[in-house]
């Protein structure tokens, strides 16, 4: 942990950014972007989450170990999603029912 105390201004800035992103995601959801709706919504959510992790939770100034730990959780989630969806998205490719 660094012993530098972050400024209030930084916190308020991040807070403002989060509010703006919330408004953006609501606004964007109202537009029909076709296939892009979900990626955009998720992109904004990831940005917001990263802001909270980096600034509010102080990972930005933290040890490499903490950074690794923080990333690994999401990495593992990705493993669950990708290998799991690998089943669902390839069902029926063989053209044999139930395979």
């Amino acid at each position, binding site marked *: 942990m660094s012993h530098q105390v972050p400024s209030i201004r930084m916190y308020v800035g991040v807070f403002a950014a989060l509010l703006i992103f919330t408004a953006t995601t609501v606004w964007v959801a109202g537009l029909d972007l076709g296939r892009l709706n979900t990626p955009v919504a998720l992109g904004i959510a990831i940005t917001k989450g990263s802001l909270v992790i980096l600034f509010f939770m102080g990972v930005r100034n933290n040890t490499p*170990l903490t950074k690794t730990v923080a990333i*690994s*959780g999401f990495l*593992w989630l990705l*493993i*669950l999603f990708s*290998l*799991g969806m*690998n*089943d*669902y*998205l*390839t*069902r*029926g*490719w*063989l053209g*044999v029912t*139930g*395979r």
Partner: protein
Amino acid sequence: MKEAAVHQEPSYLGAPYGLAAWLLTKDHKRIAILYLISVTIFFAIGALFAATIRTELITPQGDLVTADLYNKLFTLHGVVMIFFFLIPSIPATLGNFFIPIMIGAKDLAFPRINLLSWYIYVVGAIVTLSVVITGGVDTGWTFYAPYSSIASNTNVTTAALGVFITGFSSILTGFNFIVTIHRMRAPGMTWFRLPLFVWANYATSLIFILGTPVVAITVLLIAAERTLHLGIFDPRIGGDPILFQHLFWFYSHPAVYIMILPGMGVISELVANVSRKQIFGYSFVAFSSIAIALIGFLVWGHHMFVTGQSIYAGLVFSILTMLVAVPSAVKTFNWTATMYKGSITWDSPLFWVLGFMGLFLVGGLTGLFLGSMGLDVHLHDTYFIVAHFHYIMVGGGVTAFLGGLHFYWPKMTGRMYSEPLAKIASMLVFFGFNLTFFPQFILGYMGMPRRYHSYPPEFQVLNVMSTGGAAVLGTGYMLILIYLLYSIFKGPKAPMNPWGATGLEWKIQSPPITHNFHETPVVTEEAYDYIHAPAPERALTPVSPREVTHE
């Protein structure tokens, strides 16, 4: 003897006395003992279920117990053995006791959380076992939906909640270990000077924290389906039961490595000690533990080759499964090479090492049969699987646990047990185990499905052999229990280093003082430096008044 006692300082076992002092202790060693007592009790309960199952299977007709009771028996056998014995067996007892000592710390990073994890474990176990009184649970330990969610009319919800609660105990143990290993190492104790037991438990802890929460939410979903009438795996509203299997095995396959990795860690310690030699390829053995833990997360779908999972997903899981066999092979070869040109000590630890190797080899190699998709079709859900995982978890895991227990018993209790009895017991266990489970491989290839209460008569001979073997195996375990208990009261006092082993744990008195070390040790040597290791001190020799820390 008397003179030796003078030099002994009060150990962690001594003051403060009393039940309250034990139940409220924050000392990792006492908590390890609490865990040891509890896992032994659950092992006995699980073994009792197993004995009933094996007795039932002597005859092809289901005549000893009803089908319903049989299903409840194997379910509870699985649940108790896996969640309440195998998973905590080595990490929560030997790991809890020795990880802080091995790295030169006075305790785990979070002693209170350590105690909490034991209480959570006990509460989870009581909740789960309460179903024995309220009517049992018959889903199998796998809780497969939709049987568990909509079909079974037994006490699934309670059992699921018990497993859910116990999951937190594993998580807390795992995160305590990880933080401790990262942050509490003594000066000079670099990562590559850590005993391999610590590496193995570190790898295990990764699985605890990354996998356990997924199974926790999965069984919670089952409980919610039953009580709140949610429908997430319910095929009647378009839910997919196979999703349950994905979520379940995402944890439960890595959980298999929870049961074997710490055992591999124990064996690494023992092999180095019985060979009185530096472990061969230290870093390869260390990293293979991490590799097993990480790749272990990528292979869960090999439980699902014939469940209607897509064939392409099956291919990916099959190739990754084959990959995870490699680090296990690397470990095995390194252990063998360690014995080359060693100075092999024929004490009881050697017997456990050889027993482990024999059983683990068979267990590991039969995994190849199952990872190979075309063959798995035939073997899936037969007794071949039952034999395979018992070879890994009981043949490998429990043998390693017993080996570790015998190796560290003098340090933990300050007493020696009977060497000849230990050797006899290890051989009884080895032969009993093989007689119990080897016939099951043949049964499996012949096609006998698992979880069968009655079976066609042509399978009888092999089943009778298996039951006979179980009796021998049970006798072996009983013998161990008896002489270990006897040693606590009547065994000769243990010296500081009965095996002449390396490592910080052998440089402090047996049993250790409450804070392990008087002063934080400074480590200057690599692990397994047997060139400079002291000779074994035989029991009954007075405890040498050497320095208690080693600076």
